[in-house]
């Protein structure tokens, strides 16, 4: 089957460059076609990249605590740009301070994200979620 296509990057004014490269390798090893936009990615850049590459999912990373502000409105803009129903994930240190994760998750899901991952999530967890959401069975994995 065709590889599923992911667009990944670190949103906003965040310059944490190492983790996103690790994720790129992990996702590629897991059989995905990955477009890594690097750091300081704006919402518009995710959307442009997703249109051009025909992406199946946008995975947003945020490590510096301002993710909640940066992510606001991304789903609406995706809808506006014709990316209706595209899978949206967010993960990292996405809020300020130590807040109960279930509340954080709720807020991000209300913003339109399909999956929300907290600090310290292993790439395997996200990969498992991608397989599940794309309906890829263990036998089809590369």
């Amino acid at each position, binding site marked *: 089957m*065709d*590889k599923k*296509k992911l667009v990944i990057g670190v949103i906003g*004014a*965040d*310059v*944490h460059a190492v983790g996103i490269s690790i994720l790129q390798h992990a996702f590629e090893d897991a059989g995905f*076609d990955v*477009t890594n*936009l*690097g*750091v*300081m990615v704006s919402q518009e*850049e995710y959307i*442009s*990249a997703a*249109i*051009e*590459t*025909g*992406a199946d999912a946008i995975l947003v990373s945020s490590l*510096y*605590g*301002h993710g909640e502000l940066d992510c606001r409105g991304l789903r609406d803009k995706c809808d506006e740009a014709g990316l209706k129903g595209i899978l949206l994930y967010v993960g990292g240190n996405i809020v300020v301070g130590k807040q109960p994760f279930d509340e954080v998750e709720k807020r991000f899901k209300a913003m339109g994200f399909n999956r929300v991952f907290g600090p310290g999530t292993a790439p395997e967890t996200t990969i498992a979620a991608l397989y599940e959401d794309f309906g890829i069975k263990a036998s089809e994995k590369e």
Partner: protein
Amino acid sequence: MKPVLLVDFGSTNTKVTAVDVENCQILGTAAAYTTVETDINEGLHNALEIMEKTTGHLEFEERYACSSAAGGLKMISIGLVPELTAQASREASLGAGAKVWKTYSFNLTKGDMKEIEEYHPDIILLTGGTDGGNSECILYNAEMLSQLSYDCPIVIAGNRCAADECAEILKDRSISICENVMPRLGELNIEPTQKQIREIFLKRIVQGKGLSEASDLVSGIIMPTPSAMLTAMELLSDGWEDHRGIGELVGVDLGGATTDVYSIAEGNPANMATVMKGIQEPYAKRSVEGDIGMRYSVQGILEAAGDRKIAKLSGLNRQKIPQLVEYLASHTDYIPDNEEMEKLDFALACAAVETAVARHAGSLEQVYTPCGLTYLQSGKDLRRVKYVVVTGGALIHAKHTEEIASHALFDESAPGSLRPENAEILIDRKYILAAMGLLSQHYPAAALEIMKKEIAYYGHKE
């Protein structure tokens, strides 16, 4: 002695350059009005006659020509997202020496099609989608283009997975399929497309424009003039085999209607703390400012720079400037005959060079983030480029060419504009760059040697 004739059929002037390729010397240059409406040979004969007055009769062993007459190579480019494949297709067309009238993004509309019909381009470049990416858009646009009323050559250089289907849709048309201009997101691959465009130019365009009548006199028109320019600058910069070039450079060609800027430079960020934004730009990049020119587009200079700046540069009264500029715009063949107009032309040229180079060069933005100060760079960082080459009638015949050209350089009051910081200004006094681009197709070493001698006077310094 082995004399070779190089001809540039320009929109206004036909310029001839005679060189001796054995001794790497310019024998003579001359220009006469282009006569594309009647017989293009007329202008050529006139120019040759003028030249032979100084050189004496020459028996040319070879003749080559480039052309930007009859509107040049008119193209439109089509992509998907404006700042991604649409931009890539624009870069590809410009680098091939085309005049890109318009760049379209997303699906073409009926209105767009009407515009295209009216403009009647020579070549259409159809792109969209990275390899394996979006294919709906390019297929839709192929379908739209299949309804064109005339057989315009179409170069397809988008998502490779959609290429076959595009070819099927456009099977009754003159199409050629090239590698994707953006195979992966942000990555440019424009050379194959440019090669194809040049081939089509040779095969079809030259004949279609009454330029082929020149072919008995010249061994053939081998490239569009801007392409010859870009080729010459690349050669001057990179060198040829054992012959060293002069290194990274920026070129400015200030004309009456447009201003072309070239850069032969990597333009990578200066340090680690800089984050790159936007697509990668070509190493040999050409940009065209259609609103910046000394006569036909003189209003554009005033708009871009503002009357305050023109007043400051010229020393003229601010209130007077709009009226004088209007005069220039309506008298396109005017040559300054008084001090006031000379000052104005000087100021306009300075502002034109500054605007065009600033638009061509990249920019750097300071961003304060929770992680500290970072820099965002888009486009090419040309600060470390060592040479600025200036050409074009408006510049080389001006009185203060170097002073005008210095406006291409980095300006402390606009530190975000990444123009050359400490570059030497080189002037193409004999207006030979396009001719050398032509010559380089057969005699690269001689072309390089002549450019070094005539433009860089580099031979004396080494």
